[in-house]
């Protein structure tokens, strides 16, 4: 199967017009030494039906139907069919970046509305039109702060998502930034005011990676006292319940946006949310859509403040991002509009109540307790009396994706398992989880 519409006659006619005899002649000017002569060992073509069978076969090699209690940025929330149906409109899916505004009002307006809603939930006035994911949004936030302050220090909470920490570290190594990690005590960041090099940014997660709700003021006061930007990674699904980073005085908020409108997708494509203050607008990475008017005075949307971007500003751009996660952002917007203010509150409330119920149930199991006793969101850290990887494997045999082991990223929590609960989990599932975990623990 291929998707070229050319008939043999077409190819012949076109080659003839070009004065060529055969398709190979199109490449006659390439240096002989770089032209492929042998067989590249590529697979044979497949018909569509064979292809579908192959994908089905690959899919069958994944364990089906695990009931998901894993989180850490990617969550199994309820995703309404209407959100997928609208997002997957081919006019959105198969268009390019809306450079030609006149024929891209659909994508542009959808992004403008996305920006508006992301600003609304984060309480910050300006949101870009998406970044790749939560972790790389963290990198962009740090880059912004470094550019803005001219400093090389980056203070990060140990409660920041480990992958965000890791990607910032990868980047810092190349850029020779100095990262200072602030420890957690009792499940929350214990900020140390004199932690070393002058910080460009103070970065933390709200709730933090253990699920615990941080003290906004502590971080923001520290940051602003030190002349740094306060940067919060937030959980969009909890912004109906937890105070917004904007209201708390943060300068930048970013987030892993997957739970808004996107399936878990093995972690991608997802999207990074990024919001900031007007003051930092000209340093914002990524695309921005603005509202304006056309020649007839009709409202029209267009990409704007483009001088920040790589195609105009090149090596001086605020970021290198070009292709972003537009379709995922549209999904997020459709989902947010589906939820509305009260749906967002409801999804947070239900998730948190169910998390409390499960935490209560599992901590009744002998040997199982919470790693920290502090108010959490819809995710909490368990301490198990066995290796959490083994627990996850044993729970998978029982049909549960039990959570994300914490021990790799937090050696100080050797039995740590991060358990996430969404509104999708039924009480029956929570009870069964607790029963299964009890067996796993007692078998260990």
């Amino acid at each position, binding site marked *: 199967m291929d*998707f*070229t519409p050319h008939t043999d006659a077409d190819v012949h006619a076109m080659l003839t*017009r070009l004065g060529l005899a055969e398709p190979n002649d199109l490449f006659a*000017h390439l*240096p002989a030494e770089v*032209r*492929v002569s042998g067989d590249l060992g590529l*697979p044979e*073509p497949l018909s569509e039906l064979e292809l579908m069978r192959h*994908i089905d076969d690959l899919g069958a090699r*994944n*364990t089906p139907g*695990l009931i998901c209690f894993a989180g850490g*940025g990617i969550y*199994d929330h309820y995703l309404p069919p*209407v959100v997928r149906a*609208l997002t997957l409109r081919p*006019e*959105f899916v198969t*268009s*390019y970046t809306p450079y030609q*505004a*006149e024929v891209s*009002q659909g994508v542009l307006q959808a*992004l403008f509305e996305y*920006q508006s809603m992301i600003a609304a939930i984060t309480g910050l006035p300006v949101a870009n039109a998406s970044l*790749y994911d939560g972790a*790389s949004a963290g990198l962009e936030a740090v880059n912004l702060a470094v550019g803005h302050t001219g400093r090389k220090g980056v203070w990060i909470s140990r409660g920041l998502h480990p*992958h965000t920490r*890791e990607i910032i570290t*990868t980047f810092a190594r*190349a850029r*020779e930034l100095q990262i200072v990690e602030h420890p957690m005590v009792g499940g929350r960041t214990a900020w140390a005011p004199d932690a070393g090099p002058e910080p460009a940014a103070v970065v933390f997660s709200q709730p933090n990676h253990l699920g615990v*709700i941080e003290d906004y003021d502590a971080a923001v006061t520290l940051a602003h006292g030190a002349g740094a930007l306060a940067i919060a990674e937030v959980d969009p699904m909890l912004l109906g319940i937890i105070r917004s980073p904007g*209201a708390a005085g943060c300068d930048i908020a970013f987030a892993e946006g997957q739970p808004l409108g996107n*399936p878990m997708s*093995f*972690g*991608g494509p997802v*999207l990074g949310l990024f919001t900031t203050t*007007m003051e930092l607008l000209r340093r914002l990475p990524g695309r921005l859509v603005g509202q304006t008017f056309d020649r007839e005075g009709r409202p*029209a949307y267009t990409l704007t403040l483009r001088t920040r971007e790589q195609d*105009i*500003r090149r*090596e001086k751009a605020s*970021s290198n991002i*070009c*292709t*972003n*996660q537009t*379709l995922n952002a549209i999904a997020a917007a*459709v989902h947010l*509009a*589906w*939820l*509305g203010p009260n749906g*967002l*509150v409801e999804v947070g409330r239900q998730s948190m*109540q169910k998390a409390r119920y499960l935490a209560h149930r599992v901590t009744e199991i002998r040997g199982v307790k919470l790693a920290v006793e502090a108010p959490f969101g819809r995710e909490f850290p368990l301490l198990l009396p066995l290796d959490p990887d083994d627990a996850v494997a044993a729970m*998978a045999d029982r049909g549960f994706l039990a959570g994300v082991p914490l021990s790799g990223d937090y050696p100080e929590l050797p039995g740590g398992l991060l358990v996430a609960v969404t509104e999708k989990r039924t009480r029956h599932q929570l009870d069964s989880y607790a029963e299964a975990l009890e067996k796993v623990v007692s078998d260990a």
Partner: protein
Amino acid sequence: MPEPGGRATASPLMGGSAEPTLRDLSSPGRQAWSFPPLDVPDGDIEIPELAPGPPALPEVAERDLVAHYTRLAHRNFAVDLGAYPLGSCTMKYNPKVCDWAAEHPAFRNLHPSQPAHTTQGALEVLMEAEEILCRLTGMARATFQPPAGAAGELTGLLIMCAYHRSRGRKPGTILIPDSAHGTNPASVTLAGYSVAQLPSDERGMVDLDALRTAVDDDVAGLMLTNPNTLGLFEEDIVEMARIVHEVDGLVYYDGANLNAILGVARPGDMGFDIVHSNLHKTFATPHGGGGPGAGPVAVVDRLVEFLPGPLPVRDGDRLRWEMPASTIGRVHGNHGNFLVVLRALAYMRALGGPGLRRVAERSVLNARYLESLVSEAYEIPYPAPCMHEFVASAAALKRQTGVRAMDVAKALLDRGIHAPTVYFPLVVEEALMVEPTETESLETVEAIAEALLAIAGEAAVDPEHVQRAPHNTPVSRPDDALAARQPVLTWDMERGGGR
């Protein structure tokens, strides 16, 4: 009434008013959502940092939500509606069977932190795709973490950096041709390198002497796309790589233009060390209005140890994750844009070796054919045979009629065809960068040419009309200056206002 086959235009339906925003459609108390009643004990949620109330989101019913986005979709052009010869973007047809693959429940509901023994199929997808990609590029191994081309570039540059550091060198300079895409210099800066620009010569290719002069011990590497952004194959590519390698520099291939050479020539054989490819161009994954894409990075043997991780590795008949020995670390929160990779794999497997090569042949054939038709009215500034795209210039047209490249682009919209890329690459005055791709038929290619020639004809007779184009679109040219001067970036912002 038969029109020539393959002519691709979109048509109006009715109405013409602007689409209200969701906020305009909102009414307090309206609701689309529903959740099952809470089936565990309820009560006050006692946490610090409690939100004072629900956020200010719009309130709409499902019916209005559907109508809103359906109408928005009707205000957007797309590949599925017609020809999209946007240079450098490879807006080819995105097969529907790949949509099916990307929505496969066995993949779309996987959590990235699942233990590997429960995601063997997903790891196999990555392995299969990697193998094909490496064979096509002539590389040893690849990572699928970078979610787009620019992220691939940054990844590649971080790998360069790690390589050089392992050999005791500090970041230095990266050479980039003046025709390079903007992401290249931007990535270089982000990675902590500085940029040195190489001029193009009269062939539209990198000036080999300038390269020789530029190369010194501070040079960490060269970034290049080949065919370059003029659509021309860099004839001296082997020599260029040799020169850079002489100072232990690395040669980076920006794979945006891989479509032109699939199965015909391989970056590895040209001397490149690092290759990113854009699955959302070459491998037919749709562009989603600006993303998601995927920008996997493949490297030669000696750089494998630096790749980001974890990478899937075979262990008997199982697959598991492993961190490369000297990994630069993660460049994505999870495993990259996995479902995009799945789409690309479906495409690669459908085409197989012969089909992939046919992509190169027919994308070049379409471009070369279109170029020959279009050259009747537009200058082709460089004479070398084009590959999968070509750059024409409207400079003469502008001199003669005042009609600029941008006007030509807009006038094309009126004819139901998407505009080419304009004013890029920067080395051509009034550039029109045209990439028909291999999925357009002969008839469509001819329709594009006819439209471009008709516009040139119209420019001679009624330049104002062309300058005021487009005339048939949902809006005419937006006031970009106003948008930038007094930005309104959310529906809460007053013109000129904000926090």
